[in-house]
């Protein structure tokens, strides 16, 4: 018996060692797999490797581009002398119409129509200022001829010198002589027409960024994930566009077809089918899934199970506006204050305007955590005709989606909030006339809201009761650029915790966030009850034993 004991002790210990070893081995295997690349990365790298764009034309040699040009439309005419179909194609795209192509044009849905935002609200009556970002010439007012092929601005998207600048208030035209824009203090020079015309090529990110990085009239005003920091980003800011990495141009993902550029258009998602290039090699490369597939992570990684409900962006863009600040709040109601009878501006700690007599109060932020909503790729936006409920925050635009919709994902958004004018009687948002000369009702010349709304609504052909007030509004931007390196993806606990990032998304159970309170309380009562029970029992034994010894 005595001899048997040590062996008996030894065996369970050895068995335990075996279990520990087995466990270590299986974890070690996971480690080894780590060295292999995630399939989604391998696929994407294959899809983008060895891509060299080659062309067969040298525009600097074209005789027609040696001509002397006086204006943009003359250059356009020269372009069209070879590219006969280009203007016709382009004029069918949203870049030209600024209207939702999937809605009857009479309904005027689109920023060229009556669709509202909570920045400068609407372009009606403010065209010359807004249309400096129109790829055309002369959209000065509602009488602009959208069928004139020579009004198309080919250069803004195709010239590659970087010297072609449309003047901010000239309805899309450049200047004839060097002119200072008072709004930013910069001098705008007339273009060297031959140089810019001969430089044309495929659009680069500077072409797109000239407008899209400065939407809303300034760097990072509108989008939280697009600003001038994406002109030459590093990998840290954007793994795809980083000049020290893949160095993608915008059109690498925003693929084109007859001048239509892939991407969301109002309530039309960028893509309705989530297909990868493996399933359809001609699919637009606009979704993450296009190149990375639906299960991009290593086999067995839980994140692969999340892709049916959580957008890639939700984890891989933990914060937006990581380099330049973006505007988060715009309160028009405080506009009009003057110092010594003069309009003035105040800058904030980030060097961005905090107050401007013309525009009111601003709040800017850097490294912003997105807000999350179910999103199927469509965004609905109010027009100036839609009734609102001013008793609470009015969503001027909102993501469409539902947790039960298989096409919806939890998606990160920048939500821009602010206060803007509404008609107290008609319960609609109001279009202000902002830009214009004194005597026209333009707010930036007269600082009279009543006259501004009168003028703006009349121009748009809409009723205005004359009574207005301010209402808090929100406007959403999907966050999809500024994808961070994989090491910077969100840890699970950012959402899987009691007050995590998805605390506001209700209606479904999420581990780590949700718990049945009754079960939790009863459970602890049971556990503590057991503890108390054995404690009392043990105490009894202890006392009884003591008594016996006496």
């Amino acid at each position: 018996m005595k001899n048997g004991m040590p062996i008996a002790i030894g065996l369970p210990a050895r068995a335990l060692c075996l279990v520990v070893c087995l466990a270590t081995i299986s974890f070690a295997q996971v480690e080894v797999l780590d060295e292999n690349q995630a399939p989604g990365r391998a696929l994407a790298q294959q899809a983008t490797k060895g891509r060299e764009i080659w062309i067969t034309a040298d525009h600097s040699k074209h005789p027609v581009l040696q001509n002397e040009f006086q204006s943009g439309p003359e250059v356009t005419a020269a372009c069209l002398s070879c590219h006969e179909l280009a203007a016709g194609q382009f004029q069918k795209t949203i870049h030209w119409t600024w209207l939702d192509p999937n809605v009857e044009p009479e309904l005027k849905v689109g920023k060229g129509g009556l669709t509202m935002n909570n920045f400068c609200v609407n372009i009606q009556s403010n065209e010359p200022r807004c249309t400096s970002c129109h790829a055309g010439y002369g959209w000065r007012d509602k009488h602009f001829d959208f069928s004139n092929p020579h009004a198309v601005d080919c250069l803004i998207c195709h010239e590659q010198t970087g010297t072609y600048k449309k003047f901010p208030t000239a309805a899309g035209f450049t200047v004839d002589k060097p002119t200072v824009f008072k709004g930013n203090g910069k001098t705008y020079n007339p273009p060297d027409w031959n140089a810019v015309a001969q430089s044309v090529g495929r659009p680069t990110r500077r072409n797109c960024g000239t407008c899209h990085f400065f939407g809303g009239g300034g760097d990072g005003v509108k989008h939280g994930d697009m600003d001038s920091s994406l002109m030459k980003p590093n990998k840290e800011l954007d793994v795809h566009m980083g000049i020290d990495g893949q160095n993608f141009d915008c059109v690498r993902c925003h693929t084109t077809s007859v001048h239509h550029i892939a991407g969301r258009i109002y309530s039309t998602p960028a893509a309705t089918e989530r297909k990868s290039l493996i399933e359809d090699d001609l699919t637009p490369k606009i979704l993450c899934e296009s190149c990375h597939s639906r299960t991009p992570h290593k086999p067995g990684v839980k994140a692969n199970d999340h892709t049916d409900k959580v957008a890639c962006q939700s984890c891989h863009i933990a914060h937006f506006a990581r380099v330049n600040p973006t505007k988060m709040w715009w309160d028009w109601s405080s506009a009009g204050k003057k110092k010594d009878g003069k309009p003035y501006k105040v800058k904030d700690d980030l060097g961005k305007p905090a107050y401007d007599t013309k525009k009111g109060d601003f709040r800017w932020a850097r490294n912003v955590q997105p807000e999350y909503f179910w999103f199927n790729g469509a965004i609905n936006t109010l027009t100036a005709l839609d009734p609102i409920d001013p008793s609470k925050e009015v969503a001027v635009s909102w993501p469409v989606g539902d947790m039960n919709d298989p096409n919806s994902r939890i998606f990160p958004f920048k939500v821009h909030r602010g206060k803007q004018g509404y008609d107290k009687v008609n319960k609609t948002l109001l279009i202000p006339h902002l830009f214009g000369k004194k005597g026209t009702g333009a707010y930036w010349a007269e600082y009279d809201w009543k006259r501004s709304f009168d003028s703006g609504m009349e121009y748009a052909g809409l009723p205005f009761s004359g009574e207005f007030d301010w209402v808090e509004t929100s406007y959403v931007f999907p966050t999809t650029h500024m994808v961070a390196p994989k090491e910077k993806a969100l840890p699970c606990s950012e959402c899987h915790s009691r007050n995590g990032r998805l605390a506001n998304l209700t209606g479904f159970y999420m581990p780590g966030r949700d718990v049945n309170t009754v079960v939790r309380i009863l459970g602890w009562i049971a556990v503590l009850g057991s503890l108390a029970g054995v404690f009392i029992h043990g105490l009894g034994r202890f006392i009884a034993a003591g008594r016996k010894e006496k």
Partner: protein
Amino acid sequence: MIGKRMINIYLYTRYERFWHWLQTILIVLLLITGFETNGMFKLFGFKAAAEIHNFCGITWLIAFAFFVFWLFTTGEFKQYAPTTRKMFEVIRYYAYGIFRGESHPVPKRRDAKHNPLQRIVYLSLAAMLLPVQMVTGFLFWSYNSWAQWGLDWLSLYVVATIHLAGAFAVLSFLVVHLYMITTGHSIFAHTRAMITGWELVEEGTEIEEWEQKERKTPQPVS
């Protein structure tokens, strides 16, 4: 204890002890990581906790299959057959006799390891609570395949809540179990037995027939 001679008997086989301690490790890890993924505290971090939990859960599920195999091939399942005989005596012992130093009314023997109370508790554990935890845990783990398996009528919330309730039951069991192992002849007698397999029992205690896992009635050879 006084006046009675104690003898060592070999009570727990190698596999039983291995199974017991493997289960101990798995249950403790599952409890810790489970409560962590439930958001009660932070130790491993959610990701690691969830991964450890899944690993232990699946390991347990596989190991449990071997346990069931062992139960039935060895006939040990009979040790878990519930009975009311001597149940009152056992309850009386733990409520009263134990304080007076009385002997346990149902002493352990190779063929009768469990007293009636243990039989009931271990049977409910092995046949009810643990299977419920395994089924709900497996469902939780395979959540993404529910639609494929035609199980999308299930509610993850309900599955998770049952799993959590089960976890509290296991933790309560653990508390009582940890205490009960101190009620042997000495505080560590039962622990020692579960490590070495050898347990000290009073000499000469008879095992009654109903306690034996097998009834060996001699058959006349024809």
